[in-house]
């Protein structure tokens, strides 16, 4: 079974997303802040990471930067899933090595599941 690491601090969004992804047959691991997210990524080596940007303790940009610096996890695709949509944020995330950048409010869950399916390793 393929695993997904979901780094999302908003409990309601985390619940909806992880339910949808589990229904598709993925094993979903949840992290509620950036630090735990980074640690779980290193420990569990998921097949894909869904990353929010505004996170407590360590924000999504920092997490992304750390992931891409670490050889053991740098090849895991990271989809940034956020409600920030300034060009500046998008460019920054893509420059740091994000595979995809999705604005949450603009997508239905099925679109997100599809993006995951297209990008998962």
């Amino acid at each position: 079974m393929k695993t997904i690491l979901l780094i999302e601090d908003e409990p309601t969004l985390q619940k909806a997303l992880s339910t949808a992804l589990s229904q598709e047959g993925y094993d979903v691991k949840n992290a509620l802040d950036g630090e735990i997210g980074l640690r779980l990524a290193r420990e569990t080596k998921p097949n894909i990471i869904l990353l929010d940007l505004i996170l407590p303790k360590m924000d999504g940009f920092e997490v992304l930067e750390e992931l891409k610096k670490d050889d053991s996890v740098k090849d895991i695709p990271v989809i940034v899933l956020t409600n920030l949509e300034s060009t500046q944020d998008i460019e920054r995330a893509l420059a740091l090595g994000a595979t995809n950048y999705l604005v949450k409010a603009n997508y239905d869950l099925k679109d997100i599941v599809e993006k995951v399916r297209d990008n998962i390793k």
Partner: protein
Amino acid sequence: MEVKVLFVKLNLFRECREYGLSPWQCPSFIFLVLGVVNIVAMLSTYAIANRYTDQPEIAALIVIGVSAFIFIVSQSVTQGFDKLAQANKLKTEFVSIASHQLRTPLSAIRWSLNLLKGGRCSPSETASFLDLIQENSERMIKLVSDLLDVSRIEMGKNTFMPRQTNIYVLAQKIVNASALFAKANNVSISLEAPESLPNVYTDPDKIFIVIQNLIDNSVKYIKGKGEIRVALQQDDGFVRMAVRDTGVGIPKLQQKHIFQKFFRSDNIMKHQTVGTGLGLFISKAVVEQSGGKIWFESEEGKGTTFYFTLPIYK
């Protein structure tokens, strides 16, 4: 007054009126004055210089005087530009933060509906997604009404109708209404007040929101068991209310930002509490509009006490 009407008719200085800048902070107005002064100064210098051709110092003095005046005025033009730029930036920031804050509950509602329509949820999951939808729509309603309050406060247009108010009765009402919510969170809540307390002069509907905000914050930021003590006391020409809790406290470094719009401290973000970051901003505006003060004492991990004062009704 007539000049003002003329400005409105000709749509002059529209931007300055929109941002509530006084004429002396409004670049376009100051430029106009500057131009008029310049023309008058040139003409009079010419006239004076013509008449006293044997005393060139006088013309020179006038030129120096005019230059000094222009220098001072141009300083205030620069400041006016700064003020306009700042107002504009605040507005943009406000829109961007507000829309970001609205998007989270919107996404939650949209996704919960996706799951419910997908028809693959168990009955208990169905119930919990329905709860999520309800919770998030309430959160949006609260956010929108807070945002409207904030924009009214900032435009100086919030209705404030002060009258004789019995603050004890008001506090008791809120404490009683909050007791159930507090109990569900393992929090006890009490109200202490001296036997006779003078009435205060404030808008009871607005101050109701302030007390409610402070108590709600205390309940939210107590993790595990705890207590809230609300106390009323007379203090010179004021009545002082204290809301003391045994909650998570406010980190020292962040205390100075606590009344800022949209500000939420790190440690409460860590505790996953829902909030708009607008409650204290609104509370401060209301208390100050009443002629009172609001402040707090807090220690991280131990608790917070918020105080505010309201003037006694005379």
